[in-house]
């Protein structure tokens, strides 16, 4: 087999164009150091062309080969350990089943919680701004009269039933307390705090 044919086959493998015969040809020449070097060169060229990141000195194949060489060859299994071995296999299979079931269960739970959260989010929950306005200094106060409500809607673009009424209800409640009693300054301060934004 000519070197040229081999390199052509290698190129085809790299471009994912190799047929069965070419693939076998390349695999058969696996031990060939020159072929391996060519393979690495091709990878570098392709990486450059595709602007990929590449560490050309990284040779995983030889590292894996070296590690395999250090591994002791598998020994024949003693017959008396066969039961334990199959028991172990069973245990592994069982635990995999449990893990799969548990995973399914957890997954479902996640799904349920997700649905619940979605439902909760879908409800027209009233959100009361905790500071005076978004992205505003907490202590900032405009000197202009603020007619905006302290209660605002979340989500829906148009104001809902409650958004139109609750601020007025809150203010009416506070003002009644502030204006209709002799309790001093506290109810007044409560009403005043509702008035600002």
């Amino acid at each position, binding site marked *: 087999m000519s070197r040229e044919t081999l390199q052509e086959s290698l190129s085809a493998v790299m471009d994912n164009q190799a047929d069965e015969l070419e693939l076998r040809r390349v695999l058969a020449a696996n031990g060939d150091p020159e072929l391996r070097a060519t393979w690495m060169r091709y990878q570098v060229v392709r990486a450059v062309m595709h602007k990929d990141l590449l560490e050309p000195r990284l040779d995983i194949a030889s590292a894996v080969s070296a590690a395999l060489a250090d591994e002791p060859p598998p020994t024949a299994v003693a017959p008396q350990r066969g039961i334990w071995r199959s028991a172990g296999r069973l245990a592994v299979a069982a635990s995999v089943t449990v893990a799969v079931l548990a995973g399914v269960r957890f997954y479902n739970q996640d799904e349920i919680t997700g649905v619940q959260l979605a439902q909760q989010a879908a*409800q*027209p*929950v*009233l959100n*009361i*701004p*905790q*500071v*005076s306005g978004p992205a505003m200094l907490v*202590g900032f*106060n*405009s*000197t*202009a*009269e*603020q*007619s905006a409500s*302290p*209660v605002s809607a979340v989500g829906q673009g148009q104001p*809902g*039933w*409650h958004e*139109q*009424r*609750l*601020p*007025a*209800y*809150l*203010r*009416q*409640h*506070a*003002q*009644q*307390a*502030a*204006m*209709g*009693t*002799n*309790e*001093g*300054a*506290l109810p*007044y*301060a*409560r*009403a*005043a*705090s*509702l*008035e*600002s934004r």
Partner: protein
Amino acid sequence: MRFLSLGVLLVGGFYSLSALASDGAALLQRLVQAERTQSFSGTFVYERNGSFSSHSVWHQVASDGVVRERLLQLDGAAKEVVRVDGQVQCASGMLADQLTDTQLRPGRAFDPSKLSQWYDLRVLGDSRVAGRATTVLALVPRDQHRHGIELHLDQQTGLALKSLLVNDKGQLLERFQLTHIQVGEMADEVLEPEAGCRPVRSAPAAVQPAQAWSAQWLPPGFSLNSSSERRSPASDESVACQVYDDGLARFSVFIEPLNDATAEDVRTQLGPTVAVSRRLKVVSGDVMVTVVGEIPLGTAERIALSIHSPGEARP
């Protein structure tokens, strides 16, 4: 002999306990007296979740016993209220825009003996507020239907210099605290309102509410204070409004026809004030019942659930 000493201990203990309780009631009584007899001016801060503001207060008791009070917010818009004997003379901006005629009459006086029915009055000790020595009086609710209050009362005058509202978990809901106080007479001019303080024009209220709604359950101690009817803030519908209080805490119930509008039930809290809305099915069409007040959320929900129109009152 042993029985005798035990008896002495028991009686002595009883007396000291009742003495403590009466101490608290006496402090409250003194507070009521002080607000009627003591002139003072000063500045205070008000803080609740999401709001912090500072205010000036002038409180003048004339020789004929007339109490004039002027309150002015010092930061942001200059909100102002001037009251004479509890009657609002003028208010700035939107401070009084939600009022109706019937709501302008002075409310009930602070009644220490009634309060001690629903609150355990405990003298906690001494403290210092606005540079003055104070006695701390706690009003601990006897049930779960109201919040606790911590009052810091000036030892010299009996005035409340600091007031904290605390829920059952011990969380602070709001703070009212004087930072400076000057006790004594003041010039009449300081009670003159600024130009922005306009005479209160309240919306005319129906004399008699057309439909008497009733709560099947009220937290113990709360009773109806006033009942009125006014126009909805968002439509031409008429909204029934009832105000209840226990002598200290208060809540309002609003009942507004829904006219097939879609609206969910709502529960929310703004500092010390909760709002709970619940749709109520009645023959004449669904209504939305909203309870707003300085009461625990669970209590407000229970009240909202108990509201019924007179024709459909449950047995």
